[in-house]
């Protein structure tokens, strides 16, 4: 019960043959070698596996890889340019938006999706958008500060 799927990952066309039960997260990590996205809870709650599916953030741990056939996926690996980090990544470094780092790829991808949707979010909008990304180090204030800084560098 294998299927061949074609998808675009971080701007590159990929084709991969996978069992139908492969999650998108496992496909990205194990079949495509993109291990930035993490599995935390495995049930769509913690946000560590967040990727963009046709530009919209989703939980890749509860998405079937076969459902991505013909679609565009962006992972944490696709955010930085050749020489420069994505502004959200740079802001997380500058403002100390991470501690142990396991939730960080999901936090950064979610924050990028937020700023794509709402370029200059209020704190309430940041909190509502990010509430599905858990940080077990509880570094939430710094994460919010990082997103604020990425949205508007002068405001941080």
């Amino acid at each position, binding site marked *: 019960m294998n299927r061949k799927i074609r998808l675009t990952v971080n701007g590159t066309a990929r084709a991969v043959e996978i069992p*139908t*039960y492969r999650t998108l997260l496992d496909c990205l990590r194990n079949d495509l070698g993109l291990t930035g996205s993490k599995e935390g809870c495995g049930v*769509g709650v913690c*946000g560590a596996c967040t990727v963009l*599916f046709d530009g919209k953030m989703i939980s890749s741990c509860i998405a079937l890889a076969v459902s991505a056939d013909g679609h565009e996926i962006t992972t944490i690996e696709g955010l930085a340019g050749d020489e420069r980090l994505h502004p959200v990544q740079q802001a997380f470094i500058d403002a100390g938006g991470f501690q142990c780092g396991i939730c960080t790829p999901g936090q950064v991808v979610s924050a990028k999706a937020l700023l794509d949707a709402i370029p200059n979010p209020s704190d309430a909008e940041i909190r509502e958008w990010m509430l599905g990304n858990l940080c077990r180090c509880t570094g939430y204030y710094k994460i919010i500060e990082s997103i604020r800084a990425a949205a508007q560098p002068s405001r941080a």
Partner: protein
Amino acid sequence: MNAFEYAAPRTLDEALAVLGEHGDEARVIAGGTALVTMMRQRLVRPSYLVSLREIAGLDRIEAANGGLRLGALVTHREVETSPRVRERLPVLAETFRRVASVRIRHMATVGGALAHADPNQDPPVTLIALGARVEIRGARGRRELPLEEFFRDYYESALEPGEVVTGVVVPSLPTASGAAYVKFLPRTADDYATVAVAATVSLEPDGERCRTARIALGSVGVTPIRARAAEALLAGQRVGADLLRAAGESVKGAVDPLSDHRGSAAYKREMAAVMAGRALTQAWDAARASVRGTR
């Protein structure tokens, strides 16, 4: 997860044909938030999955007889952010906004939320209070059902094998009406409700007397529950804070909650009364504002 065959047909007729062929071995998948989670936990092991995601035309929010029709593939986030929904039925946008997190709302679909038939979900509660009807397609044709008759038991609906939810039709509120959704969740904002209540109140043109009220509750039984006795207390009566409190109190007789980590059955029954009173009060306030607005 178990191994399964997967089909992603481009038309509903093809999907129905595949479902007909595989009977109850097959499951329908849309956003996957409920089904994949249950498959990962090995609670369900379908041998065939039929995805609706590639079927065109199921993802529309349309005007229908003065109300709205939401296609089965419309995502929760789309309902929440739709200008059309926010203008015509803001309570519906607000209800979908209370589901889980933005990320899950990008995935979870309107049809999936109904077919999953989990009594802890938010949308069915408000949809029942609004008098919504669910559209179903099967090999033998199409049928429609009041949503409150659709839910039969925990995770069980009136869907027959081979049938698919294609959409839900939501009537508009009559004039001089208000609606409210109150979700009580003392843990985290993305949790299921401990108790959820949706209420609508329609007033007579005098703005004093209640013509009709509808009350539905979630998370307090094996299906969403309509509190008809409470509604009857309000119909035709002059509305005031005491009457609304009494109506709220009477929902205790309609609910049948389970004790779990969100609270004991006795606690949930008490909170159902409190939250029903609050939902009715908010709906009444909105109805009065609407009467004032038309004068």
